[in-house]
C-alpha cells in the first residue's frame, strides 16, 4: 500500500481510496444526489427536475460546496441519456404537483410516458414507456439508437477537482424497472410470464451496453457507475440477478478493467450476497452502499475482512435511523464505527447506507464530514 503524504484534492482522495490505497484521510461522500440539493434551493422540486432551473447537477455541486463533501458527479447516465428530446405538455397542475405527458414519435409509433412532479419530492412515473413489450420495444430500441454522444464526458469540467466524474449505466433490472408500465412488480412478473421476450430484451441491452462502453471509455471518465438499486435482493432474487444482471455487470467490469477505468456498483437494500458474487465473478472495483439492517443485510466489518482485498468499500451510515432521525451524537457514533470497521489500510469511503432523505438535518451531514476529516485521518 502507498500512502499519500500531503493533502489531496477531493478527486485525488476518492481515486486513491478507490484504488485501495491510502489517501490523506478517508473520503466522505454521503449520497445526496437528489433530494437534499433540491431542498437546499428552497424551490418546488419541479423547477429543478422539469424546468432545469437550475439543473440537478448544478444544484448538487452547490450542495457539495455547502457541506464540504467529496463530490460525486453521476448525472450523465448512458442508459437514460435523453436524445432526441421528447415533446411534453402539462396534463394537470396544482399547488402539490404537476403531471406531465411526454411523447416521442418513432418510425414504429409513438412512445409515451406520464411523469408526476411533486412539489417537494423527486418525480415518478405514473405511466412508463413499455406498456406492451412486443409493440413498444421496437420503438424504444429506435430511440436508444439515436443518441449522438459526440463528447460523452462533456460535463467533466463541472466537477473538476471537487470530486470524481462518473458515467452511469443501469443494470438490466434498473433498465427494465425504469421502462416498464406497472413498475417493479410488473417487471418481475415479466421474467416469469414472458421469458422469451425478456431474453431478447436482455440480449439487446447487453449489446447496447457493449457499444456504449466502446464509445465512452476512450474519454476516460473517473469511473463507470453501475446503477443497481433495482437489482437489490430486497426486490430481486439471486436467480434473477445471476440470469439477467450478472452477465451485463461482468461485461461492463471487464471492459473497464481493460480500459483502466474504475468500475463501481451501487446496490442498496439486501446486498450481502451480491457483494460476494461480485467478488468471485466480476472485475468490479468499488461496492456501495453496503446497507445494514433493517433496510439491508451488510455487516461492514465482515465484508471488509472477507472482500476488502479486492473492493474499495463505500458506506454505510444508516440513512433513516441515523442520518434522518438521529442526533449529531448518533451520526458521530455510527460514522466512527464505520471507520473502525473498514478504514484500516485504505480502500474505504465514508458514506451513507443509501440516498439521504430530503429532510436530513444539515448538522448531521456536517457531523459526518467532520468525522472523516478528524477521526478518518491517515497522516
Amino acid at each position, binding site marked *: 500500500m502507498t500512502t499519500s503524504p500531503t493533502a489531496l484534492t477531493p478527486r485525488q482522495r476518492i481515486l486513491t481510496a478507490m484504488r485501495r490505497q491510502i489517501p490523506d484521510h478517508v473520503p466522505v461522500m454521503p449520497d445526496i444526489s437528489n433530494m437534499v440539493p433540491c431542498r437546499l434551493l428552497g424551490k418546488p422540486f419541479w423547477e429543478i427536475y422539469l424546468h432545469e432551473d437550475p439543473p440537478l447537477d448544478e444544484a448538487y455541486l452547490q450542495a457539495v460546496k455547502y457541506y464540504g463533501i467529496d463530490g460525486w458527479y453521476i448525472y450523465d447516465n448512458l442508459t437514460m441519456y435523453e436524445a432526441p428530446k421528447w415533446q411534453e405538455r402539462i396534463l394537470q397542475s396544482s399547488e*402539490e404537483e404537476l403531471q406531465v405527458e411526454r411523447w416521442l414519435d418513432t418510425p414504429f409509433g409513438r412512445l409515451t410516458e406520464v411523469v*408526476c412532479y*411533486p412539489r*417537494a*419530492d423527486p418525480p*415518478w412515473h405514473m405511466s412508463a414507456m413499455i406498456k406492451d413489450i412486443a409493440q413498444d420495444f421496437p420503438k424504444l430500441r429506435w430511440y436508444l439508437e439515436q443518441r449522438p454522444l459526440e463528447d460523452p464526458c462533456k460535463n467533466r469540467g463541472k466537477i473538476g477537482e471537487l470530486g470524481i466524474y462518473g458515467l452511469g449505466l443501469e443494470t438490466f433490472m434498473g433498465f427494465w424497472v425504469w421502462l416498464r408500465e406497472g*413498475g*417493479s*412488480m410488473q417487471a*418481475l*412478473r415479466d*421474467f*416469469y410470464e414472458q421469458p422469451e421476450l425478456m431474453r431478447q430484451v436482455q440480449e439487446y441491452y447487453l449489446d447496447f451496453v457493449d457499444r456504449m462502453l466502446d464509445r465512452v471509455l476512450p474519454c476516460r471518465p473517473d469511473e463507470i457507475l453501475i446503477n443497481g438499486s433495482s437489482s437489490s*435482493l*430486497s*426486490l*430481486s*432474487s*439471486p*436467480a*434473477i440477478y445471476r440470469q439477467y444482471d450478472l452477465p451485463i455487470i461482468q461485461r461492463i467490469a471487464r471492459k473497464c478493467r481493460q480500459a483502466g477505468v474504475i468500475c463501481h456498483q451501487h446496490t442498496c437494500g*439486501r446486498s450481502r450476497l451480491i457483494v460476494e458474487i461480485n467478488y468471485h465473478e466480476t472485475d468490479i472495483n468499488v461496492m456501495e452502499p453496503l446497507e445494514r439492517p*433493517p*433496510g439491508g*443485510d451488510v455487516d461492514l466489518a465482515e465484508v471488509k475482512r472477507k472482500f476488502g482485498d479486492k473492493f474499495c468499500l463505500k458506506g454505510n451510515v444508516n440513512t*433513516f435511523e441515523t442520518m*434522518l432521525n438521529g442526533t449529531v451524537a448518533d451520526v458521530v457514533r455510527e460514522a466512527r464505527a464505520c471507520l473502525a470497521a473498514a478504514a484500516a489500510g485504505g480502500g474505504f469511503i465514508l458514506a451513507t447506507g443509501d440516498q439521504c*432523505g*430530503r*429532510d436530513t438535518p444539515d448538522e448531521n451531514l456536517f457531523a459526518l464530514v467532520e468525522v472523516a476529516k478528524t477521526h478518518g485521518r491517515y497522516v
Partner: protein
Amino acid sequence: MDATSDLKRIAALLQEGSITQVKQLTQELLDRGASPQTILNEGLIAGMAVVGEKMRSGEMYLPEVLQSASVMKAAMEILQPHLLRSGVEPIGRVVLGTVKGDMHDIGKNLVGIMLRGAGFEVIDLGLNTPAEKFVEAIQTHSPAVVGMSAMLTTTMLQMKKTIEAITAAQLREKVKIMVGGASVSQRFADEIGADAYARDAVTAVERAQAMLA
C-alpha cells in the same frame, strides 16, 4: 395418493411456484370430493404460511414470493365457486393503500399478497391514495382492518391526516388501523393513534389476525 399427502404436495408445489401442477392437483382433489375449505386451509394457506416464514428468514426472495402468490391466485380461481357454494367466507376484509403523495407500493403489495395468502379478502386502493378514498372504501366495503403504507418521511404524515378523516367521518370505531413502511415506527404509530404497526409483511398478517381475534 391420499388427500393429506396431496394437500402437503399442494403446499410444497405452491412454494416452488408450480402453477400448472397446483391447479391440476386442486381440481383432482375437488373431483375426488375433498372439501374446498380443507384444500384452501391445509394446502394453499399452509403453503403461503411457509412462504411467509421463508421470506422473513431470508430464505425466499420477493420474485419467488410473487410467483407463489400467482400460484395461489390461479388455484383460488378454481376453488372460489366451490367456496361460495359452501358458504365459506374470508377470515376478514382489509382495505390497503399507500398514502397520498407516495408512489412506493412494493411493501404494500407484499402485505396484500401475504394477507390474501392467509385467507383475508384484500381491497387494494393502490398508491397515492388520498384520505377521502380510504374513507369512501370503508363506507363501501366495511373492512375490519385498514392498512396504510408510506415510504417517505414527508408522506407518512398523511397517515395522521387519514386517521383524522376516518374519525371525522365517524368510522374510527368500526375499523382497526395498521401502518407500516420504511419511515414508520411503533412510536409514530402510537403518536398518530394507529392500532398496530407492522415492520414487515409477515408481521402485518400476524397483527391483522390478532386484531380480528
